[in-house]
């Protein structure tokens, strides 16, 4: 079974709860799809890590010796990526989308498309199975492609190693990376917290997620911080027919566990919060 953890906005404790699920699962493929800011590996440091480069896309570069400064590329570019600096035409690699139109149209063939391959993909074994995570080189566009690559590696490994369960820590937001994460997973767990902004994010995430799939669960983290909003979340979930599988209280031990490099389950297996997470786990995996 393939399960993804999401949370509209980050910081709801999604990664910590996802990590707790991973340590309950025992033998699992853990996937960190937050390629912008992967950090599951901090709790599950892998051994024998294999590192591969990932080509995240292409960028145009202009060879000044061939450029006649005709300005066609600047005129054609839909991404405002061609700048004129000190009389020279240059490509702003942050804005370049890699569409290659300038490359195809440049009359003097002064433009070359080069691979951007600074992004990395990591795979290794950790105490509960295998972990896969990616790291996008700073400033690369997170278009969701990388996530598809990370996920297909996860599926390959799951077959190869005979490990059935895949648990994914998803990216923040509801854009393309979000969609690449939920496409084809069996179940989605949305972690939220009771704040006005949390509620807005939750609604947006669920709206998008429901257009993809049926099996969506919600976990309310730090539910005791604001009982009123917690109630609003309850009402909303009831209306949308979504099951809330755990109400987790605020507990400083979750942070203490993280500092110790452990999940809350490992740090204090008998705590109230650990028990609640275990119950949620049963619901997700047994139904």
């Amino acid at each position: 079974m393939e399960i993804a953890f999401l949370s509209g906005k980050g910081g709801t404790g999604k990664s910590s709860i996802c990590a707790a699920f991973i340590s309950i699962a025992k033998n699992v493929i853990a996937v960190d799809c937050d390629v912008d800011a992967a950090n599951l590996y901090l709790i599950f440091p892998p051994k024998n890590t294999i590192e591969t480069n990932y080509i995240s896309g292409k960028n145009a570069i202009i060879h000044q010796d061939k450029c006649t400064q005709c300005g066609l590329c600047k005129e054609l570019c839909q991404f405002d990526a061609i700048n004129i600096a000190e009389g020279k035409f240059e490509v702003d690699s942050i804005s370049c989308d890699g569409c290659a139109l300038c490359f195809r149209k440049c009359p003097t063939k002064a433009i070359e498309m080069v691979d951007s391959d600074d992004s990395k993909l990591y795979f290794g074994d950790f105490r509960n199975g295998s972990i896969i995570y990616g790291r996008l080189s700073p400033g690369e566009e997170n278009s969701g492609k990388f996530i598809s690559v990370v996920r297909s590696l996860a599926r390959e490994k799951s077959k190869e190693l005979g490990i059935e369960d895949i648990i994914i820590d998803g990216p923040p937001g509801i854009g393309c990376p979000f969609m690449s994460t939920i496409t084809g997973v069996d179940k989605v767990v949305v972690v939220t917290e009771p704040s006005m902004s949390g509620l807005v994010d939750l609604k947006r995430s669920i709206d998008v997620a429901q257009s993809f799939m049926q099996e969506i669960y919600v976990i309310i983290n730090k539910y005791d911080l604001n009982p009123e909003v917690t109630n609003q979340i309850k009402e909303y979930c009831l209306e949308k027919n979504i099951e809330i599988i755990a109400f987790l209280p605020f507990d400083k031990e979750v942070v203490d566990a993280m500092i110790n490099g452990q999940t809350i389950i490992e740090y204090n297996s008998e705590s109230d919060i650990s028990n609640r997470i275990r119950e949620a786990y049963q619901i997700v995996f047994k139904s």
Partner: protein
Amino acid sequence: MKIAIASGKGGTGKTFVSTNLFKTFESLGHSTLLVDCDVECPNSLLFFDLKKVSDTKVTEYRPIIDADKCVYCGLCYEYCEYKAIFYVPELKHIKVLDNLCHGCKACSIACKHGAIEDSSTEIGDVSFFSDSNSHIFVEGRLKEGKIASIPIIKSAIKEASLLSYEYLLMDSSPGTSCPFIQTAVRSDYIVLVAEPTPFGLSDLKQSVETLNSINKDYGVIINRSGLGDIKVYDYLKDNEIPIIAEIPFSKEIARYYSEGKLAVSHIEEVKILFEEISNKIMKNGNSIS
């Protein structure tokens, strides 16, 4: 002066800092504009009682293929780097796949048979809001299911810059990828909000790496201090990165935030703390310009 408020990951308190900072700048008598550039999940305006005054649609190029004029030569298909043209010549079937199209216009330029008409699709909007003191707020918002946040960030900042204010505070997208950089390159100073935890440190390192690569001046606010460990402090010290302030963890602050209220309006110590932060940031800005 343009100031971006950012963090490697969402939920570290970026919106908390932006909104309270805005209130403080204002109360210190500086005309300030708050721009929500976190277009995927904009929510800093929830903290104010606002009315929408206007909005501008942000659009992106889209081709429309006229199947009657198309001769199925496949040139557009070849030009499209994103495989956004679904082209089956054997069945005389051709169609643009909206969700894969990046709006680069290459297909239209490629077509020699006049079969592609230029059009556009709405990807989001930039809205202006006003409060009871007719103070203006700007918000960029990506339409659900759309992927191109960059054009919206760019136009939100552009529209906001047309208004004259002393300070522009931009609540940036979390992360270190394109949306964050697009906001960062357009600002004079960046405030990074970080948590003193192992996750927080790892995110912070990535943000710093990114900001160094684009040569921007920045400082760090440590949020929820007292909840984590000291490794973040060691890192900042070793790399000579200035700490603007530390905001202690408090359930009271968290509660006001969760209710959509500004802590500076309710807790005296927080108010004083934010005044100090504001003064530091403004001083920093002046040393730049």
